[in-house]
């Protein structure tokens, strides 16, 4: 070893390791970028250079035909942002209360607890109220009254109404623990083989996802109607068909059980 010089072409270790590495690299690139793409029809279609670009991962015109692929109108055009989930100022709550008492309380209740099988809004997450009102306003969710009412609301009106309902206490139903016997399996664990996620993975329980509504205490009839509409695709304002995919393979009995569960009242409250 002593005075053996390493970084010179005369050193066989240096020569052989550099040559082998270069040969190995060049060969594997040739196979990966030239030989293999050349035997694949869809790689070859755009010519030699295009097949190399495709093998390198350069995006082609992925987006070009996308619009034509999707049948029907878009399900929703609302983009959920985390800022929507923030609580409003007291001014916004006050202003929202004024609008809500004039326009919403008839069906949704003075305190946001409906007695007319319209959804409860008390304590509803603000981004949920904003998204649904925007969808009604843009015609992506259909309801004769709601479309007419939402049409005249400004962005600020919508944000303030959301802030008002967010400020009211949520309806809570016992029990808080999601255990076997106290909650249907679909609520607790979903059905993995049918690709049904547990309700509590998004709607509160184990986790709450942005845009997923608070469901506890909702009128049973409202829940059944909505799940049926998702199933029949007459309601389709859930982005990426999240809810439609969940409900698609459910039976009417299962839908009934889910609605029963979320609509249940604490003992002694009746109803």
């Amino acid at each position, binding site marked *: *070893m002593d005075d053996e010089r*390493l970084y010179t072409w005369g050193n066989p270790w240096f020569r052989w390791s550099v040559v082998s590495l270069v040969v190995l690299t060049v060969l594997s690139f040739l196979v990966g970028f030239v030989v293999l793409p050349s035997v694949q029809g869809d790689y070859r279609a755009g010519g030699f250079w295009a097949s190399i670009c495709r093998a390198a*991962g350069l995006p082609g015109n992925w987006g070009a035909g996308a619009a034509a692929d999707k049948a029907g109108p878009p399900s929703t055009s609302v983009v959920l942002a985390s800022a929507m989930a923030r609580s409003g100022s007291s001014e916004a709550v006050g202003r929202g209360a004024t609008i809500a008492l004039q326009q919403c309380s008839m069906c949704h209740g003075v305190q946001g607890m409906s007695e007319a099988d319209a959804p409860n809004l008390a304590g509803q997450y603000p981004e949920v109220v904003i998204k649904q009102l925007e969808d009604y306003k843009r015609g992506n969710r259909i309801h004769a009254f709601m479309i007419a009412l939402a049409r005249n609301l400004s962005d600020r009106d919508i944000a303030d109404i959301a802030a008002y309902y967010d400020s009211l206490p949520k309806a809570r139903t016992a029990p808080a623990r999601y255990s076997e016997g106290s909650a249907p399996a679909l609520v607790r664990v979903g059905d993995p083989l049918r690709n049904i996620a547990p309700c509590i993975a998004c709607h509160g329980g*184990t986790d709450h*996802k942005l845009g997923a509504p608070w469901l506890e205490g909702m009128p049973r009839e409202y829940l059944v109607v909505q799940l049926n509409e998702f199933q029949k695709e007459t309601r389709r304002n859930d982005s990426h068909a999240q809810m439609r995919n969940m409900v698609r393979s459910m039976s009417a009995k299962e839908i009934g059980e889910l609605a029963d569960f979320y609509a249940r009242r604490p003992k002694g409250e009746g109803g």
Partner: protein
Amino acid sequence: MFLARKLVLAHFWVAFAGFLLAIVLGEWQMYVRSPLHEWINNPEHYYRSVTAHGTVMAYVLPTLVAMGFGYAITELALKRPLIGLRWAWAGFWLVVAGTVMAAATVASGKASVLYTFYPPMIASPFYYIGVVLVVVGSWIWVALMSINLRAWKKDNPGRAIPLAMFGNVTGAYLWAWTSVGAAIEVLFLILPVALGLKSTIDAGLSRVFFSWTLHAIVYFWLMPAYIAFYTIVPRAIGGRLYSDTMGRVAFVLFLVFSMPIGIHHLFADPQIGAGFKFVHAAMTAVVSVPTLLTVFTIVASVEIAGRLRGGTGLLGWVKALPWDNPMMLAVAFSFVMLGFGGAGGIINMSYQLNESVHNTQWVTGHFHLIFGGAIVIMYFMVAYDLWPQLTQCGPLPQGLVRTQLWLWFVGMLVLSMPWHLVGLLGMPRRMAYYDYSNPVLHPQAWTVTASTIGGLLLVISAFLFVYVLARAGRAAAAPAPYTFSRTAHANERTPAALNSFGLWVAMMIGLTVVNYGYPIVQLAVLKDTSVPAITIGGP
């Protein structure tokens, strides 16, 4: 040893304490997922446990073992006191602080993102900062290994670096470069989102950076085991190392090839081109070369021991081996698990075969067998072998040690073989529960019970391991001076290429640029690739 005794002990004890905790969590995961227990009510608890298990087993345990073993090698192989003892302690405390910070965050449910991070899931920033502290602590170790080697070379011009130290420094350089990928991912892509400065993240680019770390980290875990194969095993069983040069070649091949191949973890990721996937698959195949060289060399070394003990004939030497010696047992177990695990690994790295096992329980089986099995069993042996030096204890109870090794070997096979099987049947990994009442899944239920039983054997073995170490009594006399294996060819000349690192580090970096440069730059400049972050454990 000179100065590093307490330092090495501290590293080992923290590593093994974390190991005990993490192995209990692992067994709990198996149990709640098995038909022996009703479905877990809150899957978040399951993922919380998986995150803690993975973080401790993948980051904390191997890092601390590699660091502690590295400090021990520095003193034992170079035969001089460790330079930079204070810095070494600082590195240790950084690792401890990072571990505590990350563990507390995981325990509070704010970081159930699994140890591989998986953006766009985003955990509390304290989790990532904790992991960064662990890595920064280990970088101090990298620097100290380099400094100590340099000082020794200066005082010993022209002498060959002892093989143990050569392997040790290879591991250090490998880790330094390997950890850069995850460091970039955490510092530039994840932390800005975790700290609330951004609400979207480029998940595809993040995954590419993580793959940079994800595969080579395996070879960082593996390095202490390979050092033990070459420099401890032949001595411990009364043989000679068949070839010192072969050991060096294996180490430098790991250095060059273990890093620029990580895209084979991303075969199912659409953001990477098929050409790069092929190149990475081909180069992953090359990494099996140093392992095959090692298996050959160590079997040859073991054969020398068998023949020295009077074994003759084609296979007679196998019978003559010291099978009651725990080291003999451990290296045999390790090679069996390395064989199965390595064969499975070749399936994983094949671009086409991977399709059928991708993200199934097969993969979990693979890395438990190869890391938890082949490598960790050698961590045990490193600790057993160093213990008299570290604690001045007498010989460890051989019967208990053998029982511990048998339990680990049998337990690991019973745990991981059913995983391989159901993986082939399509059982996905990272699931908190399975519906065994479903007729499609029902026939697979027994495999999960089997794995739970295998896991139980591992837990017993782990506690036995720590018990043996903790109960080791002080010996009356000082232990015999520590030695590494002698080679069969005492006058073997070490070429300059295998006595320095410059060439190999340059190749490692060059190959990284060639294999990773384009995918990273392309994804970095591509517009509209970020997706909304999903905060785990609340805002």
